[in-house]
């Protein structure tokens, strides 16, 4: 491994950058250096200011004050094109790809002066081989997995020979095997002298990959450290500010089967949705079933089929003796099957409505908030109040609009709203996505408590650590198909990765580096 040489002049020096938005200071007096040929971690919770900082480096946002120096020259990119010209490239967390176009066309769209298509395809193939990132330039992006889409973004950056590559949460959509491939690529880049600014909140990754780490909290640099020397819990404490209590787990007795899904198939509800193919699983009382998998593999569709927003063939969704497959959301709630969808604003909650109205949205039938259709707003208000109190939702009160809450607080409200209705079965999709660490811990604890009280919980999540932390059994949802379930106890990340389909497309890879976890090449 090449050691970073911090004695030399740094590649990028960031000096006292400050950026304020109305109501919040996103970055305050942020200074650090990124050396040549180093992988530098930028660590922080959601909302710590990581995104704003890299947007300033990439020319998307102009700092209010402070300077940057890139390779010895003052650097103040007015637009991303200027940053790219200087040698800065960025892979975004949310891909900017056109699904209807093929790989080469997508790459061409992101270039200043794209060469002819045939030539470009050759260059894509050669770059992707050199770095072990198998890609077929002629494939349509809509058919690619998330990991393959990310490769398109990376190859697009590499074609420009960047000096600094910024990667924003690159592993959130990857299987463990794909993460391993990505790390190989990044190490190779470092060996060739490229610097990488690696943004993440996953501590183990940073410890294995990065040379130095800068930790942001509430817009300020709170620590600079060598991540390979610090322990994960030390890093977490620096990131969050306080020591987090791990979720307390009480393994109680497993009860009867509460929810049974048998042979559930469903056509994709939209063009780029995923069809569900013959899913079967059971959840017992007192148990948390973790459904893992990268988002976009049927997770949203499964939630719609369970919540009753889309009905399926008779006999496919059963609760004890009731066949709910043909019932709508109201009947399913009455039967005790409650759901919390992934998208908080616009699906789980109405953005411009108050928390009281959002309590009415899903709690009406179970909490008797209406008589013959006439609504009892007093009951809704006090229920909203109860949720706010029980789940520590930080808000002025139940009259606040849902969109005025932070992501974590709204998620606590959304999950709390369902839990306080005492479900027999609760289905949650990505319960802690985009939520700060403290709120995520509170939500996980609430799910554990609910299961301990005898409810069955189905947790759909792409955060594998989260599943390992609180689920009892694990199944993988990949390409609309479900694997067999396995108990979480004794499950390794490698095994999970294989259940998730291994590394997508690696079986056709040529010139891919050999790495420790040789994938068996599952369905991709």
């Amino acid at each position: 491994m090449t050691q970073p040489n911090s004695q030399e002049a740094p590649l990028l020096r960031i000096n006292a950058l400050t950026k304020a938005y109305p109501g919040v200071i996103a970055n305050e007096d942020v200074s650090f250096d990124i050396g040549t040929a180093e992988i530098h971690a930028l660590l922080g919770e959601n909302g710590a200011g990581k995104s704003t900082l890299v947007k300033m480096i990439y020319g998307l946002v102009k700092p209010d004050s402070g300077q940057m120096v890139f390779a010895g020259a003052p650097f103040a990119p007015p637009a991303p094109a200027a940053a790219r010209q200087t040698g800065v490239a960025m892979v975004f967390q949310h891909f900017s790809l056109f699904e209807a176009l093929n790989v080469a066309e997508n790459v061409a769209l992101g270039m200043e002066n794209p060469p002819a298509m045939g030539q470009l395809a050759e260059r894509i193939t050669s770059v992707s081989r050199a770095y072990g990132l198998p890609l077929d330039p002629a494939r349509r992006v809509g058919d690619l997995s998330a990991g393959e889409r990310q490769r398109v973004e990376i190859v697009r950056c590499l074609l420009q020979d960047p000096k600094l590559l910024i990667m924003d949460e690159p592993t959130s959509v990857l299987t463990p095997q794909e993460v391993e491939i990505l790390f190989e690529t990044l190490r190779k880049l470092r060996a060739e002298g490229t610097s990488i600014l690696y943004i993440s909140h996953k501590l183990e990754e940073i410890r294995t990959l990065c040379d130095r780490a800068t930790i942001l909290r509430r817009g300020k640099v709170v620590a600079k450290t060598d991540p390979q020397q610090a322990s994960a819990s030390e890093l977490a404490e620096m990131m969050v500010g306080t020591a987090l209590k791990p979720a307390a787990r009480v393994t109680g007795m497993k009860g009867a089967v509460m929810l049974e899904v048998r042979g559930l198939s469903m056509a994709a509800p939209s063009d780029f949705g995923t069809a569900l193919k013959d899913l079967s699983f059971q959840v017992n009382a007192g148990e948390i079933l973790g459904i893992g998998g990268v988002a976009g593999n049927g997770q949203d569709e499964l939630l719609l089929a369970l919540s009753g927003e889309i009905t399926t063939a008779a006999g496919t969704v059963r609760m004890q003796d009731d066949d709910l497959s043909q019932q709508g959301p109201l009947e399913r709630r009455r039967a005790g099957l409650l759901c919390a969808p992934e998208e908080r604003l616009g699906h789980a909650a109405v953005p411009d409505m108050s928390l009281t109205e959002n309590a009415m949205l899903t709690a009406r039938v179970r909490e008797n908030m209406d008589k013959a259709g006439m609504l009892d707003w007093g009951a809704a208000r006090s229920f909203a109040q109860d949720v706010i109190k029980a789940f520590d939702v930080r808000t002025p009160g139940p009259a606040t609009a849902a969109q005025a809450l932070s992501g974590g607080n709204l998620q606590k409200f959304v999950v709390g709203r369902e839990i306080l209705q005492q479900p027999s079965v609760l289905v949650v999709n990505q319960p802690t996505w985009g939520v700060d660490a403290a709120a995520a811990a509170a939500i996980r604890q609430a799910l554990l408590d609910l299961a301990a009280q005898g409810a069955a919980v189905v947790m759909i999540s792409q955060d594998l650590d989260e599943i390992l932390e609180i689920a009892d059994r694990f199944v993988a949802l990949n390409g609309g198909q479900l694997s067999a379930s396995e108990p979480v106890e004794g499950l390794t990340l490698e095994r999970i990765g294989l259940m998730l389909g291994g590394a997508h497309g690696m079986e056709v890879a040529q010139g891919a580096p050999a790495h420790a976890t040789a994938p068996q090449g599952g369905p991709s």
Partner: protein
Amino acid sequence: MIRLERRPQPSRLWVWCTPLLAVALTMLAGGLMFAALGKDPIEAIRTIFFDPLFNPQFASYSRPQLLVKAGPLILIAIGLALGFRAGVWNIGAEGQYIMGAICGAAVALALYPLDSPIVFPAMVLAGLLGGFAWAMIPGVLRTAFNTNEILVSLLLVYVAEQILAAMALGLLRNPDGGGFPGSRNLQQYPSAANLELIAGTGMHWGVVTAFITVILAYIVLTRHVLGFHIRVTGSSPRAARFAGVVPARLILICLGVSGALAGMAGLYEVAGPAGQITIDFNSGYGFTAIIVAFLGRLHPVGILLAGLLMALTYIGGELAQFMLGLPAAAIQLFQGMLLFFLLGVDVLSNYRIRIGRPGVA
């Protein structure tokens, strides 16, 4: 530098102030327009807004007209607002209004000269069903084939106009009318006439129905699960489905209610102020009601006030036409400005204006 900054939540103050601001801006811009036409702007504004109600010479005639004109506007606008709140865009209330009038009048003419207290209720029912059925056409096409209800309902207005002309010339023509187009005058058929209930007020059954509808719509929107589902569907359709709303059912309810109310408005008009089915019976209430619905913030009480205001500009506009010689087009432009400014200043309820450099709030 002037910037617009998004408010964390819509300002309640501005939601209610924007209509007043829009009225003020309309008066200002309208005054400039009248001045450009060579008229005294102050006098023109006074003739439109003040004289119909308070000028001793005209008030006795025009004051009752206020309710006569506001009644159908409010009745139709309430129905439209329920749909608009849910994102169901019924633009064809004019057609439903015509069909309600034809169906109601047809019942009366079929029963003529029967003298019975059931004649009028039967007409109301027929008017309601006529408008309802006409609105069901875009409704069913939308739910079954996903057609655009804006286009279908609007085009059906022109179909309804043709049917109206055919009826006035054919089936419903007055057999004692010497061959002239137009039906019997229902005002001269006591069992069917929708006459003024209190002399000198303009209050007829249609106005009463409009007021009752305002109250009912208020209750539905604020206290009933249907109104809640309408509001949820309008702001986030996916959340509505999650809450158990069946979108197709809600679309049919919204179109059906707005069609039925427009049909009733047509019936009350044909049995009362208009008196008969004629080729040019419809006078644009169905379209003006769209402005009324938005001017009233899609809120029942707001619509009540907006309907009265709009009726005032109609009456005042007519007055200004013959008193000051203003062209009819100028009056229509004036009414159009009202909607234009309302939509324009609407941005203030969701955004605030900031002057100067961005800073920390």
